């Protein structure tokens, strides 16, 4: 039962990542992200419940408050500020990006094969999915041209790692968990400041304009 629930949660997260690749409008990305955080909190809570480790409940709660509510709100204010222009044509069109995402998940399974052999944790099967989510969010950052989308890609990268930690080692010690949260939050805030600054100096947030610094 425990492993099925975890599998359900993590594959759900992977699906939300695919939404970003599929859809073209930024608001859709924000809702996908929010859903992903809820699923992550769910997975952490189930792991906490089954291993009766209260720390994970606290982590899940902070996840929800911080990443499910605060960050999407900030993202929406940013969106209102810049107007919801449609996503500029990305480097890779939708079909190929979905295809690449599939390949990346496959690669994650190949990569995770030695880990599966090593451990007998019930949440063993979720490991390749976590790695898959990591590679997909990396691909989102690389392929999308809008600064906001890259920020969302980065946030999904953080979620992938949190999932990997939760699934692989039932969470890291509390102090480290706190540190990771702090970093994620600070990272997001700084990126937000930079997006405002880019908008202000370049009056567009298409990262493609940012190629003045060469050689």
């Amino acid at each position, binding site marked *: 039962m425990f492993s099925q629930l975890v599998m359900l949660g993590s594959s759900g997260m992977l699906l939300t990542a695919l939404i970003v690749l599929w859809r073209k409008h930024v608001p859709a990305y924000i809702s996908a992200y929010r859903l992903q955080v809820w699923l992550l909190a769910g997975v952490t809570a189930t792991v906490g419940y089954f291993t009766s480790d209260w720390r994970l409940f606290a982590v899940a709660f902070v996840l929800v408050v911080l990443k499910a509510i605060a960050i999407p709100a900030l993202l929406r204010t940013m969106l209102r500020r810049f107007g919801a222009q449609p996503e500029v044509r990305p480097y890779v069109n939708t079909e190929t990006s979905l295809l690449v995402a599939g390949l990346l998940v496959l690669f994650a399974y190949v990569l995770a094969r030695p880990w599966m052999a090593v451990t007998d944790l019930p949440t063993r099967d979720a490991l390749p999915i976590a790695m898959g989510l990591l590679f997909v969010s990396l691909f989102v*950052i690389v392929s999308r041209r809008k600064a906001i989308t890259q920020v969302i890609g980065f946030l999904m990268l953080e979620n992938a790692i949190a999932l990997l930690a939760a699934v692989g080692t039932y969470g890291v010690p509390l102090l480290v968990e706190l540190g990771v949260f702090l970093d994620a939050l600070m990272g997001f805030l700084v*990126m937000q400041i930079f997006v405002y600054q880019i908008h202000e100096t370049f009056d567009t947030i298409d990262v493609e304009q940012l190629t003045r610094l060469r050689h």
Partner: protein
Amino acid sequence: MPSLALLLVPPLVAAALAIVVKPYRRFVGWAGVVLASLSAAASGTLAIQVVRDGPVFGGVGDIWRVDALSAMLALCIAFVALLASMLGPGLADERDGDPAQTRRFRIFMNAFAFTMLAAVTTGNVALMWVAVEATTIMSAIVIPLDRTKASVEASWKYILICSVGIALAFTGTVLAYFDFVSTAGEVPGSLNWDVLRDAAPSLHPELLQLAFAFILIGYGTKAGLAPMHTWLPDAHSEAPPAISAMMSGVLLAVAMYAIARWKVVVDGAVDRRFTTTLLIAFGLASVALGAFSLVIQRHYKRMLAYSSIEHMGLVAVALALGPLGMFAAWLHVANHAIAKSASFLLAGRVLRRYGTTEIDDVTGLLRAMPWTGTLLAAGILALVGLPPFGLFVSEFLLVRAAVETRHLAVVGMVLLLMAVAFVSLLGHLNRMLYGDPPPAVATGERRSWPLFALAVPIALLIVLGVALPAPVDALIRQCVASLAP
């Protein structure tokens, strides 16, 4: 324990002071300098203490662990932070920038120093990752100090690339931790480096190889190893001189420190040739990229940035060449930190006087700014590895280590690439120093205190180059011993 606290707390206090005093005033700057020198003195006593009687532990669950290597790096960081706080905006130059910018600089420069000190003094590998991530964030904020198009672009690229890199490093950390947990079970303090090192032989080799791959790419991005170096030239050339001095001098070294720590753990489980080959490959790529990027280079700040890539490549190669190579690596890190931070600060002074970073527009430096010109010449001569400066000694040891470990191909490649870098850097220096200064530039320079402050690192380099003092020699031997498996 007290000297460790005395090392870490002063930067925090300085940052807090800067936050509190809303309109920036000069006494905040001087307070920052005093606190920085306090922290530097503490790092000195810490180093002596560590050399005398072994690693110092501290904090709950031993999260702080200072061995010789951490002490040496802490000393470098504190020294460069002191230099940066003295010569940063708001104190050194007569015409102050607008107070808000200076206040922001003071806050995040001290925070940046604290995060670096924390990264090298923590014993817990995950906390080390958190601290390194924090250094990225703290330094990223302060790059676009003057809000030009270039600096905003540089900061965006810096934060994005480094965060992606660091995320990969965390994956590697989690993988190693996962492997440790699955073999030894839930042991308190399991993320401490010395626990991991002792448990290394029992871990699974193939898993640790994957973990090291992630870690090398992750921390390699922070260390500026090719091909993950792309953020470095933009960030270091656009950041304010004090920040690029700290970044180029010691931040890269902190990332190399992290790689070195993990190399020891991975070498416990996997055959040493794995990490050696990877380090030499990435090292040589960086040296090659750094050297050849210098040949046609039009901006002197980017020139110094590419030279950092080359030197970090040399350190990576040296780490893979056995104990003498390790000695050469850490001596090179110390020498490079001093030389590069001094050079960047001097380049900052040149930028303020000439107003341009184009090498062709900067002529007659010896005539326009005789003292800065001479010191900059000394700095760049040190960077190309000429006696009587310290880098000559470490590069000599590096080649000797390579010959002794029979890496003759590496010797050939390294020497050839260093020659390319030598000719290019000297060519650019040649163009800048001599000839007549452009009419618009004022000539002549008062002997003010910033120049004396900048003469200290150059003098230190000569001391390290001519007569490696015994305490430094002992400290670096201890560093090598502390990394021995």
